[in-house]
């Protein structure tokens, strides 16, 4: 199997990024020159040389403009060293001075002592400020990150009618805080990985120790350690690197912008993977059933939640099968349509130049074009697409006799059903499958649809997400978990965590019967 080895990942770590474990020297100017050379003398590197107040000790700070909160540096570092009147007992000896600065004078909270150029460059690039003291081969790396951030806003891609309005932002620290505010449990863990040969981004794996099955954490960490690429701009890169099957149309990890959704998943015994620079957080493992759940199912009363669930399952079937079933019935099995409907379909199709199959492909393809065009255009122009699409496709095409009106209804219903699914990634997956099923039904009729359905099922039961079967709790069957599957039973019934996740702590609530 040559192609398999071709596709297999090369797991050997081959880090080509340079390693500057060069020791610092004692001379201040030399040190600064080295730093400038390393970074290529950038414009935004700020170096400020000065003296400790009332002494001859030369020192300097260096930082990259824009990454640093200058207000903080001035208040917590500069003002003490330059302005404090009562700097009386400044030792003459360099090393002693260095210690005094660290122990007594500097009031910045996160200060580290470093000795290599490598540590120094990492620090300055991540927004720290470097404090040099002339005559010492050691520096302070002061955490002073303070760049422009987006405010916490309502998530754009997942809107709810009822539920928290907070969404993740690009800053990973803010995101961690958001999760911490939901789960104030000492067992909440955040494990940090560095991702990207050159980007060196922070990636944080979050889970609740004592709830999650340890094998899942271990497996996720193992897979994350294999990541070796220049940059991971989005969690999508991480997802594609560590997912179980890259040939599957189904998303094996969920992504979300909602901290409430992440918190709920963590408490079910799943891990969340956060990456610096993106508001999308991965949730793994994920099952097919999870993809059809929305946080709102739980926020509304259980009758409403159950109704929405049932509706969503119907929508999922419509999104995958409706055009295919229409094509099969109209071109292979006209006897299966109720008589009156059959006559009216036949009448509406008179004079249409295409076979139902070609018509369906054409219309579904057009639908994809419209959807893509609408998503890419700026919001103000985006609405035009809807109007143009609706008018041109819906009305003019029918009047011109290019497509039958019933086909327009079928495709529109199909599109609406696929948009009503809570996760964009699963909706897109279903649209891919739709075309496969459509082609099968165009060739083999209902028989083809059934073949396709069986194939999808075979694939789903084989698929795993971080080792958890994608089809669970349908198969492997955990009947207890079915109470949160097709319907959503009252909250008081959910006293146990989902069994299919094999949580360490099984109980999640106590209704008070003992």
């Amino acid at each position, binding site marked *: *199997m040559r192609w398999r080895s071709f596709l297999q990942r090369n797991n050997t770590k081959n880090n080509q990024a340079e390693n500057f474990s060069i020791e610092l020297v004692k001379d201040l100017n030399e040190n600064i020159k080295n730093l400038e050379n390393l970074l290529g003398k950038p414009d935004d590197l700020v170096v400020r040389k000065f003296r400790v107040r009332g002494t001859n000790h030369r020192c300097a700070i260096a930082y990259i403009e824009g990454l640093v909160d200058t207000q903080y540096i001035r208040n917590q570092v500069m003002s003490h060293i330059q302005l404090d009147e009562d700097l009386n007992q400044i030792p003459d000896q360099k090393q002693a001075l260095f210690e005094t600065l660290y122990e007594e004078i500097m009031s910045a909270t996160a200060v580290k002592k470093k000795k290599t150029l490598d540590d120094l460059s990492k620090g300055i690039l991540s927004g720290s400020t470097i404090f040099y003291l002339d005559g010492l081969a050691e520096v302070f790396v002061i955490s002073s990150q303070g760049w422009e951030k987006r405010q916490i806003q309502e998530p754009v891609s997942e809107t709810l009618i009822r539920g928290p309005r907070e969404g993740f932002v690009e800053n990973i620290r803010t995101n961690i805080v958001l999760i911490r505010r939901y789960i104030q449990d000492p067992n909440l863990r955040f494990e940090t990985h560095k991702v990207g040969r050159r980007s060196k981004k922070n990636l944080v794996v979050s889970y609740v120790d004592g709830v999650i099955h340890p094998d899942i954490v271990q497996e996720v960490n193992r897979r994350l350690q294999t990541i070796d690429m220049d940059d991971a701009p989005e969690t999508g890169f991480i997802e594609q690197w560590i997912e179980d099957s890259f040939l599957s149309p189904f998303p094996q990890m969920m992504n979300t912008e909602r901290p409430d959704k992440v918190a709920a998943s963590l408490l079910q015994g799943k891990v969340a993977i956060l990456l610096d620079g993106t508001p999308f957080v991965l949730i793994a493992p994920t099952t097919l059933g999870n993809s059809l759940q929305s946080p709102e199912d739980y926020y509304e009363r259980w009758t409403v939640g159950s109704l929405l669930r049932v509706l969503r399952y119907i929508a999922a079937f419509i999104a995958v099968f409706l055009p295919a079933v229409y094509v099969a019935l*109209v071109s292979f099995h006209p006897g299966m349509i109720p*008589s009156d409907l*059959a*006559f*009216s379909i036949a009448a509406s199709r008179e004079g249409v130049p295409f*076979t139902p199959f070609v018509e369906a492909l054409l219309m579904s393809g057009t639908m994809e074009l419209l959807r893509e065009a609408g998503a890419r255009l700026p919001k103000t122009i985006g609405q035009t697409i809807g109007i143009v699409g609706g008018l041109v496709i819906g009305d003019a095409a029918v009047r011109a006799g290019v497509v039958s009106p019933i086909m327009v209804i079928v495709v529109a219903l199909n599109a609406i059903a696929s948009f009503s699914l809570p996760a964009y990634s699963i909706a897109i997956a279903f649209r891919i499958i739709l075309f496969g099923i459509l082609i099968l039904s*165009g060739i083999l009729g209902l028989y*083809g649809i059934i073949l396709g359905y069986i194939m999808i099922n075979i694939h789903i039961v084989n698929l795993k997400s971080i080792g958890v079967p994608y089809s669970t709790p349908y198969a492997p069957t955990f009947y207890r978990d079915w109470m949160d599957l097709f319907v959503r039973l009252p909250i008081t019934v959910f006293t146990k965590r989902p069994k299919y996740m094999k949580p360490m702590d099984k109980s999640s609530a106590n209704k008070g019967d003992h």
Partner: protein
Amino acid sequence: MARRLLSCSFLVLTMIFLSGCWDENPIENFGFVIGSALDLGEDHSSETPSVTLTNQFAVPSGFTVPSQGGGGNQQAYKNLSVTGNSVFHMNRDMSKETSLTPIYDHLKLIVVSSELAQQEKMFSSVVDFFLRDHEMRRGIRIVVSESSAKSIFDIVPKYEKTPALYVNSIMKNNTKTIEVIPSVRTAKLHRDLLNKSSFVIPIVKVKGEEIKSEGGAIFNGPNNKMVGKLNAFETKGYNLIKGKINGGVINFQVDDQLMVYEIEDTSSKVKINPENPDQVKIDIKIEISGSVGEMFGHKTLINEDYQKEIKQKIEESIEELIMNVVSKAQQEWKVDIFGFDQKLKSSHSGKWRGMEGDWNAGKQLFTKSVINVSSQVTLEHIGSTDRTKDRGVK
């Protein structure tokens, strides 16, 4: 290896794509047969009499409401007639005369002319195709026409799109009366044909520009031929014995004034005692509940004695209705159309085996059986009001 894989997958794909689509035919290319009418043909030269088959095709564009005004009142059907010996052959011949492929999935109605039905053994032969063919549903309604079957399909219906659907909905909607035979579907017909039972099929006739369902055609089981007709009066009795009624009225006279009893629910129980095969005892017990629908007199009905009298009158008229049809069946048509044979078969199978051949035919044991009728009428209510007029002048 890769080449082998490629050639294998090529073969598999070829298999699918070459054999695929063989049934593919868009819906607008089909001619939907919605009704079939069978008449006796003109040609009597060959041994089996020739048959004329008239198929009614739906014309889909006639079914839609024109979207923009305009007098697009297109006829929603098209009749095609072919004459021949084999119904199957004639159906296939039909394709020569139309541009559309005939399909029978939506066939709703079969009309057989009484002339054809009266021919010896012809009936089961002409309906054979409709029971045997794989495209046929088991729920096709079957009727007998008094005049030629084709004439039923030539009526221009006022409220329905095509004559076949018109007759079909007449058959579907006749639940509020006991003067018509309940519709017969091919599944039930098939059972009766296999059991060699006698059966009744509703009759339709052309009345001006309308079609009317009235009475039933009586078929003799063993020789499979129409032997007589039930009129409206006899149909009432027939339906009462069958007991599948949830509506209908019975007229009777009380104090020389007309009164109408509305049936709401009936149940009939038939008890058969075949101790003596030459004189089978059949007891029919009918329980009816209903109300007073209309009265011409002006007596108050809130009077137990009067109600008793009314009940008795109803019982009398019911028993008269039943005895009338029973005696006609025994003496005139000499066939058991009431399904007593099925009852015998299921509850007295031992005895039945001995007399099976002699029930409708042979010794004609049915005609010799003794049939008793008893009825029990309940007056559920007397209507919304006791009286609608004053007592008048005494």
